[in-house]
């Protein structure tokens, strides 16, 4: 959508140079139409899902007035609630583990300088970013079978950590790369050991990036269907898997309700994360302005 928008923007700009004002407005009207179409394309299915979660009727296709009936019903669906708890637990664990490991990886990549094997290391860290999930899932499945590790909650937690670690590493590394090293030297000069320097200067300055990374990892784990379907076992059904198996028996309005809740949680986290990273980008600009001679 953004690509479409900017494409029209450039067109509008070139048109503005040659044509008179009325044409410009007609183009921007077209622009608005294009944006609406793009938005509708992306969000109409979701909007319908959300709308029908408030449907009073049992039939999916017939509107029966506003109601919270399916949300109430959801409270009594113990299997669904259990799946929700499983997913939440998975997301919490794997996001935290991935944040710790990903931050350490980012630190190693930016701070240790040119150690032996740095290039393969960074390539390997970022491989899961581009590998198809099916392949990661299958590979992990083979690994767990080979080492005789029971499939279930912990196997999926490890799998999600593997998947999300690289996202955290990428976000934190971006922050560390434009970090002013003289801040750390100043801290050491003022009497901080390397560990204290990290805790009192480096960490507070990269914490927004770490938080954004954690949140991204959390939503990725919450959303994941493909990898979990390889690694999970009986007793550890995640929410997406539960929803999928339910839908196979026929779409129930209750499913719409749980999906709406998931959308709400993910949207909240994504918005928070983008606000955080925006704030960090601003403080980064300020830091750059501080360093630059006037």
């Amino acid at each position, binding site marked *: 959508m953004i690509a479409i928008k900017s494409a029209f923007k450039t067109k509008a700009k070139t048109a503005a140079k040659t044509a008179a004002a009325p044409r410009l407005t007609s183009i921007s009207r077209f622009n608005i139409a294009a944006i609406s179409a793009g938005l509708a394309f992306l969000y109409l299915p979701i909007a319908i899902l959300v709308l029908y979660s408030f449907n009073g009727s049992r039939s999916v296709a017939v509107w029966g007035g506003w109601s919270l009936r399916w949300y109430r019903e959801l409270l009594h669906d113990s299997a669904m609630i259990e799946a929700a708890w499983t997913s939440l637990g998975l997301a919490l664990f794997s996001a935290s583990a991935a944040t710790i490991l990903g931050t350490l990886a980012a630190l190693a990549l930016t701070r240790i300088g040119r150690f032996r094997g740095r290039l393969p290391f960074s390539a390997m860290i970022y491989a899961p970013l581009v590998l198809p999930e099916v392949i990661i899932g299958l590979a992990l499945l083979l690994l767990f079978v080979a080492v005789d590790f029971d499939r279930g909650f912990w196997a999926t937690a490890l799998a999600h950590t593997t998947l999300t670690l690289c996202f955290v590493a990428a976000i934190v590394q971006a922050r560390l790369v434009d970090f002013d090293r003289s*801040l750390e*030297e*100043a*801290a*050491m*000069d*003022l*009497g901080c050991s390397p560990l204290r320097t990290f805790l009192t200067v480096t960490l507070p300055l990269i914490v927004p990036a770490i938080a954004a990374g954690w949140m991204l990892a959390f939503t990725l784990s919450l959303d994941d269907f493909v990898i979990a379907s390889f690694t999970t076992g009986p007793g550890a059904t995640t929410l997406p898997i539960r929803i999928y198996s339910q839908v196979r028996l026929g779409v129930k309005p209750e499913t719409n309700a749980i999906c709406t809740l998931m959308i709400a949680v993910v949207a909240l986290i994504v918005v928070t994360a983008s606000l955080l990273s925006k704030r960090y980008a601003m403080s980064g600009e300020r830091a750059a302005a*501080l360093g630059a001679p006037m």
Partner: protein
Amino acid sequence: MAEQTIVSSGKPLVRFESVSKRFGTHVAVENFTLDIRRNEFFALLGPSGCGKTTLLRLLAGFETPDEGRILLDGEDIGALPPYLRPVNMMFQSYALFPHLSVAGNVAFGLKQEALPREERKQRVAEMLAMMRMDEFADRKPHQLSGGQRQRVALARALVKRPKVFLLDEPLAALDKKLRTQTQLELRELQKKLGVTFVIVTHDQEEAMTMADRIAVMNGGRLAQVAAPREIYEHPKSRWVAEFVGDVNLIEGVVSAVDAQETVVETAAAGQMRVPQGNAAHRGDRVLVAIRPEKVAIAREGASAHGGNSVSGILRDIEYFGGSSVYKVKLDGPGSMRISSVNVSRKGETVASKGERVTLSWSADAAAVLAQ
């Protein structure tokens, strides 16, 4: 703070002993030996890339020497990490912590020492007051002007009461007026606190106005270390003479040497008499160095003063407001630059372009340098 004491010429506070530092194959500092005295305002002066920052970082502990030793108060500090050295540095970028307030920045170093809370607070307040930053105590660094940030950076390092305070081009980011003012303030601060300051600069005027002694560096080596006047009036080498200020160099051969004077035969200006300074022997090929402001210029025929004189044609006049520089093509080979204070407000000059002029200088205005 320590009582103000006179610069002692006894045991040096800092001693570099044949220190060398290489980055890969590049030699940044080479066989460097230097003493810095207690309570001294010391300047490291040199062109870009000559190793000034490297020398400072060696002293602060961010680099370790490949060869040689660095002594502080007679102790080898080579193995001491930066956070254990009683030395503090003010970074060229200031490196203020953006997540801390002004007061937080100044208190940062003291928090690393086991100090009672009260004393810490008091020292921070004192230091902020001294830097006239008390009213900005709660601001974040990005809410300050360049000059204010610089004072916070000063306060943050000085509140630690270091034995040696290192400043890496502290004034480079300030405009000319603020720079001149800050030079004086730094100098006063140093006298008041009685801390040894080591300042890095590539601006020779800055070094001259502030420092008690200057070390001139060239390509990682020490070219000369002396008081500003000594460096300017008695440069030890052609390189120093040319780097510090403007100079006329006239080639010649020593024809006679006695206890007071060296006589040099030059093609450009005939026989020149130069007071005894750098050792020269009969027959040596040497350079006679004369600073442009030590030469008097007058229309030919006007009475010349001093022991040496030479004539030529005035080729060009550069006007600098307070003074003008005259370029004179000598009758012999070569030319000279003469600077003269513009006493009169009217546009009259000593001579006009193309006119014949006589240049003269007293015998002790020149110095002999090895070629």
